[in-house]
């Protein structure tokens, strides 16, 4: 059952042997809710469609296995928006640096985020 034909993508796991199921719903973290709402809004606004995003996720190949669900969807969204030239890689990089800097509050403020990061 675990012998995968070559044409099966990393997402195509139906029928594979696997371990017991954690039947508790752990809900979603805030950023996951934001990521989900962003994806859903883009669909509703006609900017992306589910098939494009699915293809970009499946193209992750070996990386797919090591990523969590919303990490996969976020990566897929990035791929599709770059492909559509909605923003460039440089723009995204710069915006990410800007956001990262926002979390860098001065030390004297005793940021719990920074304390945890250390």
């Amino acid at each position: 059952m675990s012998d995968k034909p070559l044409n099966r993508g990393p997402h195509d796991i139906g029928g594979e042997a696997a371990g017991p199921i954690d039947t508790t719903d752990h809900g979603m973290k805030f950023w996951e809710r934001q990521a989900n709402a962003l994806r859903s809004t883009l669909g509703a606004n006609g900017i992306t469609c589910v098939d494009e995003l699915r293809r970009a996720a499946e193209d992750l190949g070996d990386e797919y296995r090591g990523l969590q669900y919303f990490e996969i969807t976020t990566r897929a969204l990035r791929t599709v928006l770059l492909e559509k030239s909605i923003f460039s890689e440089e723009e995204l990089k710069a915006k990410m640096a800007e956001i990262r800097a926002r979390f860098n509050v001065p030390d004297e403020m005793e940021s719990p985020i920074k304390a945890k990061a250390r």
Partner: protein
Amino acid sequence: MSNPNFDYYARAKQEHGHDHNHDHDDHAPVNEHDNGPPSDYEIMSRAMQELLEEKGLITAEQVRRRMELFDEEFPYRGSRVIARAWTDPAFKARLLADGRAACAEMDIVLESERLIAVENTPDVHNVIVCTLCSCYPRALLGMPPTWYKSRNYRSRVVFEPRTVLHEFGTVLPDHVTVRVHDSNADMRYVVIPMRPEGTEGWSEEQLAEILTRDALVGVTVPRIGR
């Protein structure tokens, strides 16, 4: 079904002194809090939203509203639809014939092309999965629970459904046929469970209370006085 260790909701009730009259608790998950510094993915997602806002393609209000719909509205629709199917045979027939059109009667617009309702009977039990990703009737049930998206559920439920159902505390008689339905991007499923004995005369609102998300996915069956 008789093993409380497998029943998330039973456990949650014991732990939190759950009040049955409290709105919605059996339908929406409790979200986990974010811990620690933001991950690269969180920053990436936030950055993409801000760039899209700056370019005028979306607004923060649209994203906020979507989040609200997923949290406050979508999780409570499926139970209302199935409660109506339980009380109105003509509606149930329409739901089985064309799920999308029947939901539209209740002002519910679904995100996928097709919704297929599958009915449990004394001889057939249905359970839904998306082996390829996480296709799920979100506009009816909200976001899929963690386990629905998990590798273990997606891999196993298609070839050993009885064992998987047992992990959810659901044990079916041997003569019952188990049908597993694999969803995709254009086609979603919802289960119409069997209406339990002892619910005669109940209102749609009362019935909706026992129609939990897990019962509509088919990993559990509705029970009175859970």
